[in-house]
């Protein structure tokens, strides 16, 4: 649940999402669920020339499995906390597999 927990803190931030088909979309992250499906608002497609069919899309729901990268605003990430959260997650996982 670490990634879900993490992305939840990024709601209402502007993120850029690169899909596995190379489309890059910048928009405001409205919500995310445990499958890391993503809802974006006020979107803007980078390289719009290549994907004219997206020119009128204002918001979208992206299935989590098609996301390649999510580019985040660095200032919104608490690295120390994230490290600790990762440690906890790792400890949880170890606990679970045993």
């Amino acid at each position: 649940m670490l990634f879900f927990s993490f992305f939840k803190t990024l709601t209402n931030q502007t993120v850029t999402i690169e899909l596995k088909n190379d489309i890059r979309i910048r928009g405001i992250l409205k919500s995310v669920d445990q499958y890391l499906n993503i809802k974006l608002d006020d979107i803007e497609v980078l390289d719009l020339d290549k994907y004219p069919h997206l020119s009128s899309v204002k918001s979208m729901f992206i299935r989590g499995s098609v996301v390649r990268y999510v580019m985040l605003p660095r200032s919104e990430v608490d690295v120390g906390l994230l490290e600790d959260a990762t440690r906890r997650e790792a400890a949880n996982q170890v606990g679970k597999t045993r």
Partner: protein
Amino acid sequence: MSFFGFDTTLPRDRQQGGPARGFFENPDPFAEVARAQAVEDDDGIDFEDTYDGLGDQLDDDQDAFNDDTFGGGDTGAAATGAVGRDFDFFGTTAKVADVIGEEQVRYALQNPSAAPLAAQQHAAAPAPTTTATTATTTAKRTGYEKYSDPGYIPDLQAKSSVWGISQKKQEPIPAASRRPMMSLEEVEAQLRHRSQPAPTMPPQSIPQHMAEQAYLPHPQYPQGVPEGFPAIPPEYLRAALEKGVLPPGMPGLPPGIPELHGGPVMSGPPPMHIQQNQLPPQNLRPQGPRHAGPPPGQRQQQQMPPPPSTRGPNGGLPVITNPQQLMHLTEEQRNAYLVEDAKRAKRNHKIFLLSRGNGLMTPQDKNFITRIQLQQLVAAAGNVADADPEAVLSEDFYYQVYSQIRGAPRQHPHQPLGHFAQTYLLQTGNRLGGHGNRRAFQSADNHMQRMQQQVQRAVEAAKAKPKNKQLIIEGSLGKISFSNAKAPKHMLNIKRPDSSEGPRPKKVQSDLSLSDRKSILTNIESVYSALMAMEDMERTMPPPPEEGDSEAIQEHMEWRQKVHSLNQKLWRALKVMEPIVPNSTTPHPFIAFLSYPKGKKAIPRIFRHIDQEQRVTILTMIVVHLDSLDVVRLAQPGPGEAQPSLAVRESIDLFSLAVMPSLLGYVNEAPFNIIIGLLGLVIAQTHVQSVARTKVGLGILTMLLSRAEIVKEAGQAAERDWQQWVEKFNVLFDTLEPSLADIFPGAINTGDDMYVWQFLAAVGIGASPEQQQRLVIAVKDRVMETVGYSKTLPADMASLRLGNVNLFMRAIGLDVELLG
């Protein structure tokens, strides 16, 4: 399908249907009417059509039966106007139950014709006037028969139909089960035959409006499955009679009675009957007023030409069970009747349409499906029951803490998904409750409760279920893996090596070299896990125990014990106490720990959880190894370089930000002798001149010097201690003096040199006048350079640089202003 197994279709319906119908191909008794209404029947099913309107017909003004219910009148309480506080309405009613029962029997004996009439009312055209009189005299008692038996306990069953859980189906009535199918006529004939000689049950045993609706062909929806079907009073009576137990109120019932009690009910319209019985018994009571429907006048005209009141059991339209009856009515009446009829038919048709799928799934089926859905919900969203903060924190740590730190940015900061199921339930409840209708509200309430119970049971079941991760069905080739969001399906199924085999050899290796990169990183991680455990402990600290509360004291002691053991664990993980090996090529484990950024970052957190002694140990350790610290060792710029590499500068900054404040915090409280000792260590153990060329080294020296000065100012320094300090200081000064010009970082125009001026100021304050002289000479060039350089700078930067210099100048009693 009638509940009792009678064929309730009227002759005309029967012709078209034929006996060969399949089980689910129920004839639609309203098809005809619906077809007739097809033009106006274009709208959907709306509430008005399906709501029977009984509530609207309640006449709140009429208090005719209040005396019966509340025990006024006869008992005289109402006469005096005293209301009293005895609201035991049921008890009051029960007091007169015997009387009611007696009245019934007495009436039955007096009017032997009443029962046949009642039967007639169902079967054939009633004689209107007679029915009217009999009904009027007995209406008061209607619905209370069941209370006549003192041993009677009303069948208290929740309205389970909304949830679809059926109670045990009632035993079918023996008579009905014996004779599987009988036509309505046959039953009637039998009834009449049987009832010929006998005095009868008063007609009130048949709820009036039930009889009234008998003219309708009865919809045969599968709804007829009797869910929550309460005991039928007459049956009960009959059973009691058969057993020979006569209710006290009925001493001398003629032998024909038992059958007759059952008779009308059985011949009555079963579906209606069921609907009736689903209502609580008291709902049946005020039948008269209730059935004075909106168009009462027209109805009454038949029996009592002027409509005197809307009350009376015959308030409705005449009961028409035979088409010929219509012929005797006036045109107006007939129209009104037809309109009424059409309305009712339309409503029933819609109910029929709605109920087409009824009974396709048994309640068990529905339960099963609901359970599956809920289990999915629970599995996906986490256990509803697990909503305690600990579980949330472990699952959702980053989000929870982040929103605490940065202020919750979201609408529902503390609504993790575990509450999803509950939210869903609440929404459902609201929607159902929104009807504004008493019954709907009640059922919604009930529905919600049941849903919640269902969720709880589902959660229990999910918990109890063994956590099988996959299922291999015998004979199949594959396996079915279960997955949910928390535990996704494994793409690879790798068997872990037993812990006894795998990591062993590595461990031996790591024991050999304490300082290779991997073991250092492992150490750091173990420090962090100890830290996190301690921070968790801090959160769960019990409140400070009060005097005498031994339990709380005990709890507190245990907590302290745990904290202490964690502290020991942390301390061991830090490896501060590892023996110092002089001239070793590998750095001390703690120094190695500090050479990693996350090691440095851990220091402030560590300092919060250790005591003073441990802090001074750490400080001592750092001071002793000052020149092997990476931030000191690597901080000397290489030959020909103005400043150290970027990575080193970053780590120096990190050290200054993370470690130095912690150290400074301790030094500012440290006793003087420790400061003296530390300075002695710097001089004895390290290469002071190279240490002084680094920011960190200078910082530590500044720290010690300024603390000593503060102690002296405060007059806390004992004379002997101070002598010791001055000795050490002199040694330091003499060592540093030759290289004072070199401690500045690079040329005048590179970077920040404030820390150097701070150091010089700290030295200057503690120095003797003679030493101050030497100090000024040593750094005079740099001072002049800076002053000159600052003239070429913008005003704010210039004042900054001059301010730095002034730190030092003021310390030795001078000012840059003097330099002009």
